[in-house]
């Protein structure tokens, strides 16, 4: 399908080997390679160039090998651009950059191409709502060159809404967004490229911790951030961590000691254990080695961040980890598990409360702990979140559940609108902007709790057709005017960075409450007919217009206007999106 004329002498290097061809042992399969300065890995999406074709082809690498005559080959599973299958495309595009993955059997599914035909990497994000697909964030989708969630069956020539078990013999999990490079041997990379991966993770430390919890959103996003860097290990461990996060905590123990040198300065993060442990669902005892690796890796970044924790302290803490681990080593009955987690996290918090350097990371430990747990942690060490987010400098913290988040259910509350009116009157109301539009009200409350150590009652502003897709807003009612003003001041003078490089913006809103209005632009009444029965009926009955009436013509004018306004809203938000993107690129920390 793709010809290559005149291969220039571009830089090329094979990466990891996979295995040799079954019968023909001279065929060597590979997992990755570097070509023209770009690292490619199996299941990467790439552009392929064909001479004379204006548009590059789009495909996914599903096999990489070298033949016995030293020819480099790749097998490519194709994506179709809408224009390529316009004859069979009877559905609307869900996204302006939607493409369709080839599926089924027949011509056009996949082809073998010379490796040199690859023209570059392409960022294709899978937006399938399938539970197995790590969900991309809005940012991911915005950054993506293309998105897909449907397939084009090349045999039947129809668009399919579902991605089935296997396509071209490739398991569906390689087709969805990768929560890692998903290489079976990538764990070994930890020891192999230790320094490299460590560095990479260090720069990324802020984000890493959250990955253990297989929060799909985060993972896929983070991966993509990392993608450009040569950090196979990172990707690999993500995946591993995700897959293995159900591993018994006890299995970690024997390896922890082995990892001592690596783990130094790192262990203050041991709450991680509690965290992983907390996924008390179905525990499968997976290889402890993997787990230990993942854990130690996980902790490194935070260790690097903490930095100032010295060796002695960290060793002391190492002990504490062991302790906690030992606690976890009780019989692994599910009922007991919660219990042990609780103990360990309590221990952690009390220990670390005296540890000013370490405190910055403490909130992260509680994130995954379930409600029951939280209460106990909270009553034992009420001072913990009050390490005063404000003072922790540029250290990242993970937003944890506000300890009393359930209290709202204990007492009845005033209806929201009444509270809002009250709060506005007394100056206790704050409007937050630039939130992720997907956040729920409870999450906003949690952010406030973690950032300011203040409780508030928050409610997200419901979006409408005209709302900006780039940011969400929320009202928050604080306990006093002073607190509300303080929050605004702090957010003004400093910056609170939310995920996806969103600095939170706060202001005093001026909401309007009186909703009574009788005038409505667009509904006409002929005065003289007002009293007539027909007119009354026409108005009060909902109906579709008939095409032979004045009403219909006028309705069309409204349609036209709406369509026009849709266009300019779209333009506006596209423009704003571009401006945001341009500015966000300037962030130094990733």
């Amino acid at each position, binding site marked *: 399908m793709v010809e290559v004329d005149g291969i220039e002498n571009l830089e090329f290097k094979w990466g990891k080997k996979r295995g040799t061809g079954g019968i023909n042992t001279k065929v060597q399969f590979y997992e990755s390679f570097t070509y023209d300065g770009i690292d490619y890995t199996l299941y990467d999406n790439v552009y392929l160039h064909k001479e004379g074709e204006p548009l590059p082809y789009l495909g996914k690498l599903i096999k990489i090998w070298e033949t016995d005559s030293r020819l480099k080959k790749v097998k490519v599973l194709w994506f179709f651009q809408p224009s390529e299958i316009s004859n069979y495309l009877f559905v609307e595009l869900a996204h302006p950059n939607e493409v369709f993955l080839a599926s089924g059997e027949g011509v056009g599914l996949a082809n073998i191409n010379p490796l040199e035909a690859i023209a570059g990497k392409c960022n294709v994000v899978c937006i399938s709502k399938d539970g197995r697909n790590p969900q991309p964030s809005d940012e991911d989708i915005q950054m993506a060159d293309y998105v897909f969630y449907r397939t084009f069956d090349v045999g039947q020539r129809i668009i399919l809404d579902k991605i089935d078990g296997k396509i071209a013999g490739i398991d569906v999990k390689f087709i969805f967004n990768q929560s890692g490079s998903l290489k079976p041997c990538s764990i070994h990379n930890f020891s192999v490229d230790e320094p490299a991966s460590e560095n990479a993770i260090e720069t990324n430390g802020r984000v890493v911790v959250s990955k253990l919890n297989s929060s799909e959103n985060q993972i896929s996003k983070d991966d993509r951030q990392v993608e450009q860097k040569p950090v196979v290990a990172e990707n690999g461990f993500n995946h591993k961590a995700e897959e293995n996060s159900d591993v018994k905590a006890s299995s970690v123990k024997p390896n922890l000691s082995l990892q001592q040198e690596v783990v130094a300065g790192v262990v203050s993060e041991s709450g991680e254990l509690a965290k992983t442990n907390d996924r008390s669902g179905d525990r499968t005892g997976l290889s402890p080695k993997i787990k230990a690796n993942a854990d130690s890796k996980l902790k490194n970044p935070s260790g690097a961040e903490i930095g100032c924790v010295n060796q002695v302290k960290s060793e002391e803490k190492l002990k504490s980890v062991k302790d906690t681990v030992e606690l976890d080593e009780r019989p692994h009955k599910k009922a007991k598990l919660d219990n042990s987690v609780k103990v360990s996290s309590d221990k952690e918090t009390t220990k670390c409360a005296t540890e000013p350097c370490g405190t910055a990371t403490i909130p992260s430990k509680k994130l995954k702990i379930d409600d029951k747990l939280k209460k106990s942690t909270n009553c034992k060490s009420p001072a913990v979140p009050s390490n005063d987010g404000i003072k922790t400098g*540029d250290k990242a913290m993970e937003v944890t559940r506000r300890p009393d988040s359930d209290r709202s259910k204990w007492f009845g509350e005033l209806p929201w609108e009444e509270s809002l009116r009250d709060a506005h009157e007394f100056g206790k109301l704050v409007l937050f902007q630039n939130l992720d539009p997907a956040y729920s009200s409870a999450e906003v409350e949690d952010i406030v709790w973690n950032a300011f150590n203040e409780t508030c009652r928050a409610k997200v502003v419901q979006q409408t057709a005209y709302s900006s897709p780039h940011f969400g807003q929320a009202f928050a009612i604080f306990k006093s005017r002073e607190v509300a003003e303080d929050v605004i001041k702090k957010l003004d003078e*400093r910056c609170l*960075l939310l995920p996806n490089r969103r600095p939170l913006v706060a202001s005093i809103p001026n909401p309007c409450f009186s909703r009574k209005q009788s005038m409505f632009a667009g509904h006409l009444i002929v005065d003289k007919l007002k009293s007539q029965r027909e007119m009354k009926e026409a108005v009060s009955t909902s109906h579709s217009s008939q095409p032979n009436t004045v009403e219909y013509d006028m309705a069309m004018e409204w349609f036209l206007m709406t369509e026009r306004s849709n266009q300019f809203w779209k333009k506006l938000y596209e423009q704003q999106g571009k401006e945001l993107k341009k500015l966000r690129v300037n962030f130094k920390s990733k």
Partner: protein
Amino acid sequence: MESGKQNEYAAFEEKVRRTVYLDNLSPNVTESVVRTALDQYGTVKSVEFIPNYLEPRNMPQCALVEMEKEKQAKVVISTLSEFPFMMSGMPRPVRARAALAEMFGDRPRKPGRQIRIRWLDTADPDFKVASKLKQLVKRHATETAVMLKHQLEKEEKLAKQQGETLKANYKKYEMIDSLMADGAARRLARCYNLRVSDDSGPSTFH
């Protein structure tokens, strides 16, 4: 626990798919109006008007209408975008779109999402960019507000224009009516030797 939340969120997502977002609704539209209007396309399970605290007061109402089945929601959306549909007044049609999760004020937490936040001091290398971003966000909010105002003005203009047209039309009809009624039309027709066929009544012309 975790799976319970997963289920809760899945149920919410399913509800979103069954829900139609309606806007350009007159302030006179009430829940019962919506229910009666959309009953023909399926069972309306609930109607929630989206409160408008921040936008101009004369913004048309928006509502989330939860249907019983996803298919019914699709039918409502496709019908209402194909044919102008009037609710509590004419001739401005209501608009229907698929609802989005962000439109629901009570949306549950998405399971598994973690939020990491970070304070940036003035000394932080990213402080400047972040501050600029804050400015940009504020500017964008203003732009949105201006755009909205502009749109409302345009809508009012169109409404006024249509009002004039309608009035003029109505005047014409009235004139024709009165001419027919007092026999002037027939007299003139006879004068110019024209046939006037009047469908509305028995012709006395011949």
